[in-house]
């Protein structure tokens, strides 16, 4: 009795999904507020930074130095844009993200920290002292998070390889 309408509904849903998936591959995911487009149009990446030695420290000559600073430079190179550093106190970084006055926040954020609630969280770039460290993006910016995640993932893979190479070398000695 219910068979025909259910089957029809499933068929319809599947067709819809297939169409959506095929036609939207280029446009999904999209940024809610177009952060990635703005970065590309501006030619600059606005990075909010609060010091967390040794992961990231302010430097009068280079803006910022440390593992997270290098990660940001890798990302900027990847996008072909320049980096603009915005030094901010730790807790103002999150507010700046929510108001989208910065595109990225670095400052030794741990994935498990409550700071990461309500904003976009990258993949972890490294595990140090049992904490997974991440960088943050404004909430709702899915498309912008993708290149961030790719660079972070690449860096974390490289770090992993380096760490295991080190282990083998130690064991051989």
């Amino acid at each position, binding site marked *: 009795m219910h068979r025909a309408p259910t089957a029809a509904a499933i068929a319809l849903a599947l067709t819809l999904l297939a169409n959506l998936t095929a036609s*939207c591959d280029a446009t999904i995911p999209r940024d809610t507020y177009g952060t990635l487009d703005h970065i590309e149009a501006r030619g600059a990446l606005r990075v909010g930074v609060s010091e967390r030695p040794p992961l990231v420290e302010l430097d009068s000559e280079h803006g910022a130095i440390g593992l997270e600073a290098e990660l940001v430079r890798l990302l900027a190179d990847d996008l072909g844009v320049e980096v603009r550093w915005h030094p901010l106190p730790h807790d103002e970084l999150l507010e700046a993200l929510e108001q989208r006055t910065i595109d990225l926040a670095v400052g030794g954020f741990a994935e498990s920290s409550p700071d990461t609630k309500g904003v976009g969280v990258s993949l972890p770039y490294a595990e140090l002292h049992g904490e997974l460290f991440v960088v943050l993006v404004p909430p709702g910016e899915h498309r912008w998070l993708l290149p961030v995640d790719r660079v972070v993932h690449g860096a974390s893979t490289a770090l992993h390889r380096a760490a295991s190479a080190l282990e083998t070398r130690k064991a051989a000695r």
Partner: protein
Amino acid sequence: MNTYRRVSLPPELEPARRRAKRHAWLSLAFLASVIVPLSTLADSSQIVKAALLEDLLGIVPPIALLVTWRIFDRAPSAEYPHGRVRSIVIAHLVASVALAAMGGYIVVDSVANLVRAEKPTLGAIVLMDHAVWEGWVLVALLSYSTIVPIFLGRAKMKTAHELQDKQLYADAEMNKADWRTGLGSVVGILAIGLGLWWLDPVVAAVLGCSIVRDGMTNLRGAIGDLMGRTPRTVDNRRVDPLVDEVQRYLRGLRWVERAELRMHEEGAFLAGEAHVVPRAGTREMLTLARRAREQIDAMSWRFVSFSIVLVDAIDESTVVPDP
């Protein structure tokens, strides 16, 4: 003194029972295959939270079935003179309360998220060393979790009819109805990907409402069963025709002047009693009453306890109209 029979399914229903058990195990295996990956992504959005919760609660009915079917047909004892049949109804009650409560939590949580304008942000996850957008993984996972229960639900429904098992029927109906919420969650994830962040809590709240509704429907059924409501058909739509059949049988007997009946359900089984006023002058009344009872028992395997109480008059104040 114990008038309860040991309940047991007739041998011809044994294959249906085995099938129901197999479906329960299949459901559990399937739910595990959804819950494990989904729980690692639960942080990402309200929709995923709601879907995960729905699947987590989906574990309860198959487990209840597997557990109660191990104990419901134990012989009555001095400690449990009514046997353990009601364990099935208790499992039903617990599951429906959990369902309604968790659905309510999702609704409240989603509305709060909407008010706070909390935007989900879906990034990449690593699959076989590739960074893939989480949304696609969720769409695939949620589609899988939607399509499989449609077939499971259909199979369970057939078995539920054979076994007259309301709990199984309710579970099957929920499985079958899941496709709407599943489709909703897939569309919701795609909407998030299009930047329509507010659709996340809205879709999640709708999912929550449907969970609450499922819970309330089941709760009504379970409470009715526990209160000893007159037996209803497996889909709960109308009074079970067996009630009328027994009533007419008794009233049609020549030695019966008057018969008033009350019956209730215990899981798939039926129990109850009839107060019967025999015609004056009828001899061998007790034998006749026993034969009538045997006739009624033979009408369906579902009768576990039915007694005929011979009375000299029916107390009019206790009579309710026939269902």
